[in-house]
């Protein structure tokens, strides 16, 4: 019996779901091994009878919570897909700013027309069984996650830092190129795609289990970054995680 799978999205750019579609380019057999019963971005047919829910996007308004809980009740396995669902992602950048100011800047005096609250990862709303990290996710990692599910186990993702993969790829370290990088504290799994393309890691896959934040900040400082710039770098994708480490969680 093929597992029945549904895709959902909350606040996001839908890039991860597009990546899921892209996965078909290299793995067309995906459609033979799972039964997709809901995928709004790609199909009109829908059924609420599913076992596995892949959810993209962060929760950014109270009214989404109920829908997210519904999915949790229906699905046996819930998997957070991408940085927004996993970490709050880019959406959480605003969590460090006064929300009212943010709303007013974009919608002026109509700011109250639209419901919103500080962005949060799925795991702040429901129990999440596994995550596929990244902004966007990596297609091969998605395929591997499905493989693991078909084998009856939870998708396993690396728990070591990006530097490991970066060195396996033999990139010249961004630090040696006079630039900066969050690789030492970021979870691997993307094959160090950013350093390979000449950009320091921005942390989209989230922190490793025991990040040495003090030491990375020191390394960044030493390369001439100001405290503001360091904060900005650590709050591209890591706002929610770092605020949580500081004991701050949004109401």
């Amino acid at each position, binding site marked *: 019996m093929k597992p029945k799978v549904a895709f959902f999205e909350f606040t996001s750019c839908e890039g991860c779901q597009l990546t899921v579609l892209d996965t078909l380019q290299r793995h067309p057999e995906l459609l033979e091994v799972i039964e997709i019963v809901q995928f709004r971005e790609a199909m009109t047919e829908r059924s609420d009878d599913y076992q596995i829910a892949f959810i993209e996007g962060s929760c950014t308004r109270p009214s989404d919570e109920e829908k997210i809980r519904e999915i949790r009740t229906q699905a046996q396995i819930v998997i957070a897909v991408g940085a927004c669902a996993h970490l709050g992602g880019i959406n959480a950048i605003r969590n460090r700013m006064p929300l009212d100011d943010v709303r007013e800047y974009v919608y002026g005096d109509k700011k109250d027309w639209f419901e919103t609250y500080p962005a949060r990862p799925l795991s702040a709303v429901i129990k999440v069984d596994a995550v596929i990290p990244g902004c966007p996710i990596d297609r091969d990692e998605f395929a591997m996650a499905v493989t693991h599910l078909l084998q009856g186990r939870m998708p396993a993702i690396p*728990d070591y830092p990006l530097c490991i993969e970066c*060195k396996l790829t033999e990139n010249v370290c961004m630090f*040696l190129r006079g630039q900066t990088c969050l690789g030492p504290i970021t979870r691997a799994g993307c094959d160090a795609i950013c350093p390979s393309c000449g950009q320091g890691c921005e942390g989209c896959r989230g922190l490793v289990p025991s990040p040495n934040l*003090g030491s990375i900040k020191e390394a960044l400082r030493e390369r001439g970054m100001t405290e503001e710039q360091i904060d900005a770098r650590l709050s591209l994708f890591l706002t929610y995680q770092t605020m949580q480490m500081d004991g701050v969680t949004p109401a």
Partner: protein
Amino acid sequence: MKILPKHSLKAWVERLRATHRVVAPRETYGQYIFEEIENADDLVLDYHTSVLPPKKYLLPPREDLFAFNAKTMEMSPLIEEIQPTVIMALHTCDLHAITLLDKIQGTGHTDQHYQARRRKTTLVSIECLKPCMDHAFCKSMGTLAVPEGFDVHLTDLGDRYAVDIGSEQGEQLIEGLSLFWEPVEADYDRVNQVMAGKWPNFDYRLDCDVTDLPDLLAASQDSALWDEVGDTCLACGQCTKVCPTCYCFDVLDEIDLKLEHGKRIRVWDSCLIEKFAVVAGGHNFRSSQARRLRHRFLRKGKYQFESYGLLGCVGCGRCALSCPAHITPIGLLNTLAERRRPATEEASSRS
């Protein structure tokens, strides 16, 4: 010994390329990477250490162990048709590292994957005449001298290379080639002169004798330095990835979506990663970064020596260069030596 005029180097490499994959350092963003050379014009012999050591041709970062069909249980080994490879311009530290790896991989159950690659690999090393970078401490580690273990060894004499042949395999690379000349008296003089002149260019950077390292480390097991350094270590693992003598690996299975065809692979692992020594039940036998760092250093400076008679560090300095937290073997070992000294002196004054 033979002589190869510098202007003949390209011609030699082109000859080698007809029968071998020739790999050599190539510059990229101010660092060097060993890569197959497509054109003898690209050849660089004067370089500072490479990002990954040439060991990557013997123990690839990711290596297929065997392929399988999980449904039929068929398995087939994937020690593929390995191309005969010439590694050009190895520094002597890297040569020492390969000698150690040869021992390790050949002890006990021999690793056929390593052996298969090793057999097809010919090592052309080059005499280091000046320090390649600030972080190197080969002279202290005793790896600046040419050991055995090379197939061909080049010494830069200005307009020509002195060519030493270390093995049958090396002999085959130059056999019958008119590019190589017989040396004359003056060539021997020149070699001696170059060799005598090179040593003062290098400093001893380790504050203790290299033969004392196992003792120093044994005595420093409980040093507070491990904790101090452990606090700054990012646990990024770069030092272990770039080290020419590290060889730990993890084993993983990959399988297709139909759960049928797959392969088992191994990937370089790192003892500085938190999960390296965790067992079922969650117990971590090396529970702090301080202990993980200590393990790495004791392994380099003590355990390898005890098990294989060779030190596990060849002083290439790669780990020091790569460490974003500036943790360096020289800094660390010299601090240990310094902290031990008063105690030792006290002890000796008492006796």
